[in-house]
């Protein structure tokens, strides 16, 4: 599992600016250290145990919306979450992918 390539599709939309930011990351094209960091973030988020849609508060406006798909070792899972509903354990992965989306 450790060395299996992992593919991550990331989308951030909404916010007051309403801009959609996307990136697709393949760990086998990344420096080993960065690939390892992403794998750990996916593990720590228990990503494959998260529900497909995380309920978000009915109140409020202009929050970010995320859609994240991870494929590894024949498994594939998509999670949609509002910014306020994202679990703490998922936040580092969202932040990191947000940074990578800016760089692309």
């Amino acid at each position, binding site marked *: 599992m450790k060395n299996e390539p992992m593919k991550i599709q990331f989308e951030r939309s909404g*916010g007051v600016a309403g801009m959609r930011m996307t990136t697709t990351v393949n760990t086998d094209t990344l420096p080993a250290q960065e690939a390892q960091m992403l794998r750990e973030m996916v593990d720590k988020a228990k990503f494959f145990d998260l529900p497909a849609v995380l309920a978000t508060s009915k109140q409020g406006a202009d929050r970010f919306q995320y859609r994240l798909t991870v494929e590894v070792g024949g498994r594939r899972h998509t999670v949609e979450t509002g910014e306020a509903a994202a679990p703490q354990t998922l936040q580092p992965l969202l932040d990191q992918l947000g940074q990578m989306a*800016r760089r692309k």
Partner: protein
Amino acid sequence: MTTEHHSILCITPPHMLREIVTRGSSAQRDWALRTLTTTEQFRGVRQLYADFPALAAPTAAAGKQRIVYSADQGSSLPGRKVRGEGEPPSGDVGADEAYDGSGATYDLYSDVYQRNSIDGNGLRLDSTVHYQKGYDNAFWNGQQMVYGDGDEDQPPADRLFNRFTIAIDIIGHELTHGVTQYEAKLIYRNQSGALNESMSDVFGALVKQRALNHTADQADWLVGQGLFTANVKGVALRSMKAPGTAYDDPVLGKDPQPAHMKDYKNVSYDNGGVHINSGIPNHAFYVASLELGGKAWEKAGRIWYVTLRDKLGPLSNFQEAANLTYQVAAELYGNGSLEQKAVQTGWAAVGITVGGGTEPPPPPKGCGQTIMELFGMK
């Protein structure tokens, strides 16, 4: 007096009575209040006192009340208090902008539309600045406004956003989400969500235009001008004058807003494109304002405000919003008035027809007008 006017009472729309409560003499106010408190159309005495807090003497709400906090780049809300109402500038630029911008927004609603704060009952306006690190956003969380500093965590050459308090219309935008939450309660998804967004852009723009004393033809009609750094190829987040043209940048992409129903975008992201399709009602408001000329907050703004306060509901769509603004224009300014025609022209410009042969009939002829004239308020 009540008996004398009874025949027109039954056809006097509640919002017109509310105008009289606000703008009329004390005798006129008493009459309108009696009518309001006995009409089933109205939402009840409790709401009445919420809307006209000065009438509820024992619990009269204070006027403008603001507190600005700093999250000190963390996520805890509201954070550390930086400036309270009436206190001198704090020296923190973002905090002082949040203070001044929320004040200008309060003033628009209070001075022009006789609304006491976002809930109509003097709710304190709380803002938090310096939210998180590299947070390129501002939002309303249901209770307060929150502002990030942009992407200050990036090297200067890569920065795209300034602090989000830099644009006064963004402050008006966030506060208006609060007004919508207390009034029409437009559900934040698809067309009702895009209307929710558009209302925030409209009143945000009006806060700015009023602060600058700009007439409709002098205004830039941009949303969030000043937010981009010089690294971005663009002028603002959105353009109400020309939706879809605000930016076209290698990193941020192109402004996705449509300006016409034929370009409406059915998308899965952004709650069904609430920040995207808002370009359509935004442009309708722009065209109506230009048609009317003068200061957009006075007539077009009033029509939109009364529609938001009294007419729209959680699931209203664009067509319904168009029909209702057209109806409100007739109630406020008369059936067939220039104001009503301007509203019709605005919606026509985005591909939405109102006032055609198949539309529901307008309200009883001259109803609102009669009342206003009766009271010498035209």
